[in-house]
């Protein structure tokens, strides 16, 4: 094959020929077998170079470390905005969580605005794993705050029947003093008076009941609960039904819902309790359900 023919073939594949020259080239390819073979061989060689060149280029692009895209600078305001939003949402969530975990301050009932509500030293609530439990605890606290009133003799359902005994006058004086202090909401003095009682008198249900009443008023719920439960279990005590009510309230205060329900159920079916006490217990039980 002459140099001129080779040049012609190269020009053809470079699209460097005129239309007439291209037609003449194609005509020669149809007529001249050797020329056609050489042209096809050239075409194949060019294809090989192109394939190899492309592979080399792709390899170079693939194996080179990616240039850090400038796009980052364009999206940073968006990223900043999204991060701020996420932080705000997190902050809001944490704050809501704290709000739910915080024990609710008891609400002073409107009927007795000066009544002190036990708080502060109450047993810390158990850490609840989920919000439902936290909400439930918060609800029992609210119910406690609404239902709790320190014991008032003569109030609805608070009439304590005398057991008909005629105790020692000195002891009666001490017990009466204790009771009087409790009814006057002088709870610290009431506890001091309790300590001054003779050991035998201290074990009387009445003394224990008023001590518990003052303990609860001062926020010493756990101590009060134990004493109320003891009095409540004594079927003979004139204070048993009241103690059942306060034992239930203590359980509510500490978030022990099953125990609160148990005491309310017992009070609701206690034939020695007044109708008003039973109704009060049933109403509160209904709210707990």
């Amino acid at each position, binding site marked *: 094959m002459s140099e001129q023919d*080779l040049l012609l073939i190269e020009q053809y594949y470079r*699209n460097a020929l005129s239309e007439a020259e291209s037609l003449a080239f194609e005509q020669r390819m149809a007529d001249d077998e050797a020329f056609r073979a050489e042209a096809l*061989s*050239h075409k*194949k*060689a*060019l*294809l*090989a*170079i*192109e*394939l*190899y*060149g*492309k*592979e*080399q*280029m*792709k390899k170079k*692009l*693939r194996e*080179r470390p*990616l*240039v850090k*895209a*400038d*796009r980052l600078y*364009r999206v940073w305001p968006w990223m900043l905005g999204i991060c701020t939003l996420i932080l705000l949402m997190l902050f809001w969530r944490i704050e809501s969580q704290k709000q739910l975990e915080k024990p609710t301050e008891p609400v002073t009932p409107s009927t007795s605005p000066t009544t002190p509500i036990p708080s502060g030293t109450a047993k810390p609530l158990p850490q609840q794993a989920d919000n439902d439990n936290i909400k439930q605890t918060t609800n029992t606290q609210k119910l406690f705050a609404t239902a709790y009133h320190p014991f008032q003799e003569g109030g609805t359902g608070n009439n304590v029947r005398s057991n008909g005994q005629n105790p020692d006058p000195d002891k009666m004086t001490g017990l009466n003093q204790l009771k009087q202090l409790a009814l006057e909401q002088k709870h610290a003095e009431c506890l001091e008076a309790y300590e001054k009682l003779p050991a035998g008198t201290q074990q009387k249900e009445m003394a224990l009941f008023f001590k518990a009443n003052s303990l609860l008023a001062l926020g010493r719920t756990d101590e009060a609960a134990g004493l109320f439960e003891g009095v409540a279990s004594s079927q003979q005590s004139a204070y048993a039904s009241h103690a059942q009510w306060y034992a239930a309230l203590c359980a509510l205060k500490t978030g022990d819902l099953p125990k609160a329900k148990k005491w309310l159920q017992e009070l609701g079916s206690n034939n020695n309790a007044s109708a008003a006490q039973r109704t009060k217990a049933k109403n509160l039980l209904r709210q707990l359900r």
Partner: protein
Amino acid sequence: MEKLDAFNVNAAEVIAALRAGHPGIMENLYDAHRAAFLGWASKRFYSTPSDIEDAWQEAVAVFYKQVVSGQLTALKCSVKTFLFAVGYKWLLKNHRKMKRIWWRGEEDEALATDPQLTAFSFDDDLWEEERLLLIAAMEALSPQCKELLVDRHYHERTIQELLDTYEYASKNAVTATLSSCLSKLKLIIKEKTKK
């Protein structure tokens, strides 16, 4: 050459830079739109990341070749749209059955209406065996021959540019070496085809 912003550069600037012998712009374009293409194509094809990456490389390589060979002198759409459309066409060619979403975007529009894309087809529509044979034939050449042939016929460098780049005495020396390398390549292909 002043560095071009691959995100904002227009097609004319890219084409001018490539025609002026600055292939570096391809690397910028490749990096700038790569992540977007990978995300875009993976939503449209049940395909492996490696296939999609391959499609992107193919698109960039095809664009480059079309520009340097003078087949593509201007674009009606953006460079990004052209690259996406070519990559998309390559995926359709090789993974048509894997296409999964049938919505239409600007790339579909360009593929259907832009003459530069409707007329375009992949040149190397070869059997894999033949493709490997041709690449192997190139591999069999000396490094000098490979480099010279690729520069001349793939990167479309002129004889003068080759003379300026390599240590040849004259244009004739360049032409003679090119001719010799091309003859060797033809011979190797002939021998490999016979086997």
